[in-house]
């Protein structure tokens, strides 16, 4: 009888633990969904004003209900599955694109204590998750069995993997300074005011990381993967209704993710810029919003790059810059100027 109550007791504990974890996950995913939805609104509004237009202003006050209207419209549109496509893979594509864009948030520290899974391999986990997203793109393009989708997915995949290298190298620089893969510890390594943040000693790597992040998320000016003037919409040309909406959400969730990572690695996460001000999660939000704004600004400002220019920038400019700066930082760490890089 005793073993039964023991089993039952631990069972009850496990249920509680699972339930509590689920509540915490929803506390992250819920606001993230709202942030993603309103990023699409912010994008249209910001680009609108940059082009001397007003942007959406009909649905709700100031157009604030526009994302809801868009979502409902897409929900009631037919999900077309082309006869020539591979059905299972066709539906797997969007799921495989959005799942890692959300799952990566499991290790993001929002505050000194506010982190769902405080693991030592945090950064490695985030990189692993963001690498999976490329499979969604390839599978979607292949399974559609359409020429535009196929070409778009090839371009997109080659572009994403190329910039992933530059991104990885620039993160190596952060690791050299922080001596830890734990995202919370990386932030704590930047304590003591904005002049301790890693974007100053690692400035070239910060720039390379941020531009690579724009290319990784297939955003303008690196959006040839879906360059509408030549291959219509790229890898998601055959997707409609909610299947398209999932790709759309994944793109914006990825923008938030890469900007959050940039804020954590290079701009001190939740730490305040001046030592006499209190550290707070609001600082993290402010930094995220600041970086995301650049994504919108880029889209309003720059014309699209040609594909060969994109590949040249990734391989022939960014990779040499990052290697040289890693060697430079490593060499400086062997001298008495070591303190500048911690």
């Amino acid at each position, binding site marked *: 009888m005793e073993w039964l109550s023991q089993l039952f007791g631990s069972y009850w504990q496990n249920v509680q633990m*699972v339930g509590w974890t689920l509540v915490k*996950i929803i506390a992250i*995913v819920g606001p993230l969904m709202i942030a993603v939805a309103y990023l699409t609104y912010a994008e249209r509004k910001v680009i609108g004003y940059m082009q001397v237009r007003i942007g959406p202003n009909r649905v709700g006050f100031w157009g604030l209900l526009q994302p809801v209207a868009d979502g409902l419209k897409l*929900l*009631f549109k*037919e*999900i*077309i*599955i*082309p*006869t*020539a496509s591979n059905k299972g893979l066709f539906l797997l594509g969007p799921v495989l*694109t*959005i*799942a*890692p*864009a*959300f799952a990566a948030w*499991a*290790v993001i520290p929002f505050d000194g204590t506010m982190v*769902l*899974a*405080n*693991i030592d391999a945090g950064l490695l986990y985030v990189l692993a998750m963001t690498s999976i997203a490329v499979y969604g793109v390839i599978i979607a393009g292949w399974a*559609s*069995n*359409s*020429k*535009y*989708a*196929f070409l778009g997915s*090839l371009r997109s*995949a*080659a572009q994403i*993997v*190329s910039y*992933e*290298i530059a991104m*990885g*190298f620039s993160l*190596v620089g952060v*690791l*050299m300074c922080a*001596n830890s893969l734990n995202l919370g510890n990386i932030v704590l390594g930047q304590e003591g005011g904005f002049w301790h943040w890693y974007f100053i000693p690692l400035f070239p790597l910060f720039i390379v990381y941020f531009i690579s992040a724009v290319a990784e998320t297939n955003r303008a000016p690196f959006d040839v993967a879906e360059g509408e003037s030549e291959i219509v919409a790229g890898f998601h040309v*055959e997707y409609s*209704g*909610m*299947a398209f*909406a*999932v790709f759309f959400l994944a793109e914006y969730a990825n923008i938030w993710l890469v900007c959050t990572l940039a804020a954590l690695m290079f701009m001190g996460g939740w730490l305040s810029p001046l030592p006499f001000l209190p550290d707070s999660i609001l600082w993290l939000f402010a930094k995220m919003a600041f970086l995301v704004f650049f994504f919108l600004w880029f889209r309003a400002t720059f014309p699209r790059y040609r*594909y*060969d220019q994109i*590949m040249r920038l990734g*391989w022939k400019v960014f*990779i040499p810059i990052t290697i040289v700066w890693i*060697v430079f930082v*490593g*060499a400086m*760490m*062997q001298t008495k100027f070591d303190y500048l890089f911690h």
Partner: protein
Amino acid sequence: MLENYFPILMFILVGLGVGLGPLILGKLVSPHKPDAEKNSPYECGFEAFEDARMKFDVRYYLVAILFILFDLEIAFLFPWAVVLHDIGLFGFLAMMVFLFVLVVGFIYEWKKGALEWD
């Protein structure tokens, strides 16, 4: 130690749910009226000319191979960067020898034109 990874497993499942949920919901509430034209592959109003799984440029393949090489270097650099402070000058020089070999290969592929897209 390992129980720290349990929330991650749950989060991955929730992530899959975030993908599957809208698809299932959309399938339930949206109309479903397929016809032959609507379900044919999109090709600017034409009948599809040939198989969409056509030949593609070998350079995509080359990029994939180069990516694997460089991504392995990064996987190798990560643990080194984390402990660089402890292994000191010797560790630094050892990695420089390795990076030198890598850069020689990089210059070779550059000169060979593997990075040209024109």
